[in-house]
């Protein structure tokens, strides 16, 4: 892959310092962890059968 870049004598540290000011604004938003697995996963064949029924939650 051909890319364009700066010679190695560029002041890397200056760039690293400058990069601290390039970040997006601080405005935290909570993201609660989701639950995707049951504690005790069992083979629930009736649920699998209901997969073909549209519009129903299983």
């Amino acid at each position, binding site marked *: 892959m051909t890319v364009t*870049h*700066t010679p190695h004598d560029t002041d890397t540290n200056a760039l690293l310092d400058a990069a601290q000011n390039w970040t997006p604004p601080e405005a935290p938003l909570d993201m609660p962890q*989701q639950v995707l697995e049951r504690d005790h996963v069992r083979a629930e064949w009736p649920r699998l059968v209901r997969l073909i029924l*549209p519009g129903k939650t299983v």
Partner: protein
Amino acid sequence: MSSSPRKVMAADSRTKLLRTLALSFALLAALTASTLLADAAIQDGVDVWDVVRGLLIFVTTAWLAWGATLSFVGLAPSVRKPRPMPDLTSPAPRLVVLVPICNEDPVTTFARIAAMDHSIRTESLMADIAILSDTRNEEAALLERQTYLRLIAETQGKGRIFYRRRNDNRGRKAGNIEDFIRRSGAAYDLALILDADSLMEGRAVRDMAARMQADPQLGLLQTLPKIIGARSFFGRAMQFAASFHSPVFTRGLERLQGNTGPFWGHNAMVRLKAFAESCALPELAGPPPFGGHILSHDYVEAALLARAGWRVQVDHTIGGSYEEGPENILSYAKRDRRWCQGNLQHSRLLLAPGLAAWSRFVFLQGIFAYLVSVLWAAFLITSVVATILAPVPNYFPEPHMLFPVFPDDRTKEITALIVGIMGLLILPKFAILYEASGTRRTARFGGSVRAGFSVVAEILLSSLIAPLMLMYQTKAVMQVLSGRDGGWPANQRGEGALTLVDGFRAGLWIMLTGGAALAIVARVAPDLTLWLLPVCLPMLAAPFLIAWTSRPLTHKLFLVPEERRPAPVIRNYREILGRWQSEPHPETVTTEVTHVPA
């Protein structure tokens, strides 16, 4: 888990009816195929191989028929009036464009961002852009910083276009976006999620934002990205198929999706409040490939948004959404390996609590997209085994018979089965060509004749490389099932033509497998040799096909509208890229950098 007050939005009765019809058609086609096969197979008695073959042909045909059904549903005339596209009202939602990158070429990626920024501002739309780097390689990260300065100079984007690099890339792309939301999500209402190779018109971004603003229940709006910039035979065939066939398949999907549409990971807009409250993905218990980080996170995020009561929709009518595609079979197979692992991992989530039934069905579809290759391979193998183990015909079943009794010839049934299966593959494409000619959509593809040639050429190419894809996908599934973690390496974009040596490196094992299969069948079941030639001959030619299809193709075939009249954002991107590459920044030079896996 968040305690969302909402429940999954139920599909309306029309969507339920369409789903039932589509599923019924797929099952009916599968039943017909099984009956035809059983009718031919029971001539010499029923054994376990006949039962296995019957089951395999049932599942594989159901899968093919389901794909065909999507096109038929998409081709059906619409009975609903198209909704007028709303426009933004004041106050406009606070919008951010997220560009997660990982070991990408920053020059091409940031040139795209510069073009999109210009296009967005042309639409008088206020949007920040955040480049979210997960790049691990220090030299590549340095290039990103340098190119960012050039991007800022090009766009005057200081304070509007941001760049941040994570210290660790936990959760990969999903974790990268989650990190942004946790730090900065409250500053925005909507986020347009892109890939490094995404390109979107400002008009499309504005339309999406307006749709999200007008429908507060809409949690995610997915566009259908068209492939651009393909040069090789393989790449241009895919580009044509994505432009010509995909809108119809996507329209079919739209009509079946209800409120639980897809998320393809990029070129989609999300409502940040909805995404934040419902899409923080946990690690799955156990080691990869089935445990650990969720690889194909997009399908799961769509399911989680729907679970929390948000509407998730895809809309193929939003134009100006683009991406790039693999240029050769090898790149395609590498990407497929990642997606295969990600989709098979979804088997862990089939029974996740609270999901809509359609979300589970989408997981199942994704799993079968790869499993079906193994089932086809198993069908071919069992067919050979059944033929070898079939009892020798008894021409004189009764003693003292004067004339022999010959078994009924069931060639017609088998031929009908093969024609039917081929029909499920090919008929949708010709039906789309017919529809496109009728609506004069073919005019944008060089006219009906040229579009017709392109459709036929694409079908021939797909048929030729289908056995190769079957082998690559079978290998990928076997690797995942045996516990081999392929990881999630960075995309290798811009791969060009492959040499014959590359072709042999990538396809010799397929060639040897095809040769061995043909030799064995010719010896032990010569009657089957002719039937297996369409599978084995492309396998024998695998190295040549891999190399040949990666070569550049002239524009006579597979013409797409974006080649005749590129959108302004495409033209602007190419102008910026050309300028950046031909006139290096005062502090920049050109060198070679190799992609480093994430």
